[in-house]
């Protein structure tokens, strides 16, 4: 029998125990995978947007709209390549479902967000149709909207000139993201700013927030400072930050989610450590005479240590891989439903695998050392 075979054979001599231990490790890593994905989402999840874009908002808060008259001044700042602006529409679908919709200028949007992919005709149609709107793939699929549909969307903020808050837009385009991460962002709808600006009752000239594409990402800080300095002490003071910081700040507002998730992770891990650690200790205790025989047969202290460690590793890795696998599956299920951009991705897997290795050491080391230090005479005598 090979050494690997020996480890496996040992593992399965108590089938119930091994199965149960594997299952607890599995559930722990299932939870670990999901929670770590949430954690990533809230801490560094905005990484992929990079620093090529800046967001300029009113300093007092992004809900206070900046006026459109700032546009030429912002465009004139050296280092600014393209500028768009977007106004939150407060979209409501049917009875009470809030949707994320912005009013924006089609051509400017296309220039600032090359990550959104749509055919030329659709971009042109968006530009040419006053009552047009485009939506991301996820949103379109969720509500079954097709190009050519007239979609009734209400606003909980902006009435039309006649006082009615029921708007309707022609769906002229459905955009995709350039890669998987951007595809997850396709749950937003955009309407034509020119039409919105003219048709809403509150008057024109509100830009909302500005998004600027930089010629050189390294200049982000200088450009941001130049813009904020320009509007200092005016009624419309600005706060300019990278898109990444803006997104992180936005998510952070939901609360100390990261903190709570870390607490749960800690609780799960501690529990798990104890369960598996105890099982390992027990199985070594039961096998003391056997281990002594192995040593009598000439296996070195080192290889006995290896056997026990290998067993711990095997349990943690098999259970961990299965658990993370299920987490990935569930995460994709949640992610593709479009409600919550959850993804158990490479980054989560790396932490997961690190956790498996750490766990195997933590639970295996003590029993393994005990096995290594075993004195043959004492062990055989049952002392």
């Amino acid at each position, binding site marked *: 029998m090979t050494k690997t075979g020996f480890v496996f054979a040992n593992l399965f001599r108590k089938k119930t125990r091994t199965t149960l231990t594997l299952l607890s490790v599995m559930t722990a890593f299932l939870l670990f995978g999901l929670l770590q994905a949430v954690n990533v989402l809230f801490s560094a999840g905005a990484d992929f947007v990079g620093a090529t874009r800046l967001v300029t908002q009113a300093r007092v808060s992004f809900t206070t709209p900046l006026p459109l008259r700032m546009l030429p001044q912002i465009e004139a700042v050296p280092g600014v390549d393209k500028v768009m602006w977007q106004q939150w529409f407060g979209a409501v679908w049917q009875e009470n479902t809030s949707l994320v919709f912005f009013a924006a200028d089609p051509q400017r949007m296309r220039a600032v967000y090359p990550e959104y992919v749509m055919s030329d005709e659709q971009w042109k149609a968006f530009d040419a149709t006053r009552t047009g709107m485009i939506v991301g793939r996820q949103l379109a699929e969720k509500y079954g909207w097709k190009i050519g549909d007239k979609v009734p969307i209400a606003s909980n903020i902006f009435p039309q000139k006649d006082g009615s808050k029921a708007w309707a837009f022609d769906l002229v385009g459905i955009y995709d993201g350039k890669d998987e991460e951007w595809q997850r962002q396709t749950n937003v709808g955009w309407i034509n700013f020119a039409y919105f600006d003219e048709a809403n009752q509150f008057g024109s000239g509100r830009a909302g927030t500005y998004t600027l594409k930089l010629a050189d990402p390294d200049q982000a800080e200088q450009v941001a400072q130049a813009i904020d300095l320009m509007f200092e002490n005016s009624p419309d003071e600005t706060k300019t930050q990278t898109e990444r910081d803006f997104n992180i700040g936005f998510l952070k507002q939901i609360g100390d989610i990261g903190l709570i998730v870390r607490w749960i992770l800690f609780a799960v891990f501690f529990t798990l450590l104890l369960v598996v650690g*105890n099982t390992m200790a027990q199985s070594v205790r039961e096998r003391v005479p056997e281990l002594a025989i192995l040593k009598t047969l000439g296996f070195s202290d080192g290889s006995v240590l290896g056997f026990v460690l290998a067993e711990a590793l095997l349990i943690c890795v098999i259970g961990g891989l299965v658990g993370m696998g299920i987490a990935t599956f569930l995460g994709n299920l949640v992610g593709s439903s479009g409600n919550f951009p959850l993804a158990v991705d490479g980054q989560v897997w790396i932490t997961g695998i690190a956790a498996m290795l750490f766990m195997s050491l933590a639970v295996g080391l003590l029993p393994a050392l005990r096995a290594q230090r075993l004195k043959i005479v004492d062990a055989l005598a049952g002392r």
Partner: protein
Amino acid sequence: MLSQTAAITALNLKSIPQRWGASLVIVVGLAGVVAVFTALLAMAEGFQSTLKSTGREDVALVLRGGSSAELNSGLGREQVTLIKQAPGVVRDAADQPIGSGEMIVIAELLRVGESTGSNITVRGVEPSAFALRPQVKIVEGRAFQTGLRELVVGRGVSRQFEGAKLGQTLRMRGSDWTVVGVFESGDANESELWADVEVAQSTFNRQGYSSVRVQLADKDAIEAYKDALTADPRLNVDVESEQEYYSGQTRDFRRTIGALAGVVTAIMGLGAIFAALNTMYAAVATRAREIATLRAIGFGGLPVVASVMIESLVLALIGGAIGAALAFLLFNNLAVSTLGSNFTQVVFNFKVTPALVGRGLVIAVVIGMIGGFLPALRAARMPVTTALRAA
């Protein structure tokens, strides 16, 4: 039979200290499950009770039709006058209707120790606002003066955010505002900054109001008042009691946290069941001989099953109690904040209530039962002779 059960159970429980290691698995496992469950729901509970106690039943909140939150709403000066003068509004000694036209804007403040801003509600209020919310009490400094750029801040904001202490100044839209007072109310109002509505309007360049609150005679007066406003062709408004409005805001949060707590507890609970099974199987296995001896001298199968189940239950309950205690010590009254429906921070405290602890313990008992049942069966079914010969 009862005495047999009692005898074996006592034996089992007394021997627990000799095998702490294995029993600890159940205790710690259940402590983890119950602590996480209780803490998550304590958060939902705290949020809900904060918002629920904010609104009064005899105060009507009027918003523009279809706006659903104060932030989205907008009412003109004439409309506000119509709303306040409508029949049903209680009048004060000077025969003026008790009502407050209020305007909401959002300001970004830095949470202590953080660099990204959080949205805080700035509420421009009329003098009646204080009469409409008797729970609001200035505890430091004084109220703002009409016509000046002065703020009173809620206790929650002043604790958690920078620049909101008494005497400090906040910069909003190019002008400085002095914090002249701190108020307490024990509810969601504490998450806001209050200022004179006229000053706020001129600073933020707004003509109108976001909402109107009016005092009604009692909670039953709301229907008549609503009908009066709906009948007025000059108005297109939604009327709700203040309490309904705030309770409605907690729905999404409760649902989200409830779902999170459900999923996490279910998965952790499953893990704990496996761990408990493992422990109890091991406990039964190590005592195989002992149990067989008992059976041989005439103890029945049922007392053996019962005793194993009871042992598992006791361990689970101890674990559950430790978990609930942990949740209480670590989280009770912990102040946190999250986004409310006005897109601004609502500061609230975790609330570990007896009901939550009870539910946590029920979960512990259920897991303990499941974890004990199969091993108990195995123990009872063990053939006596084989077990006696083994080991």
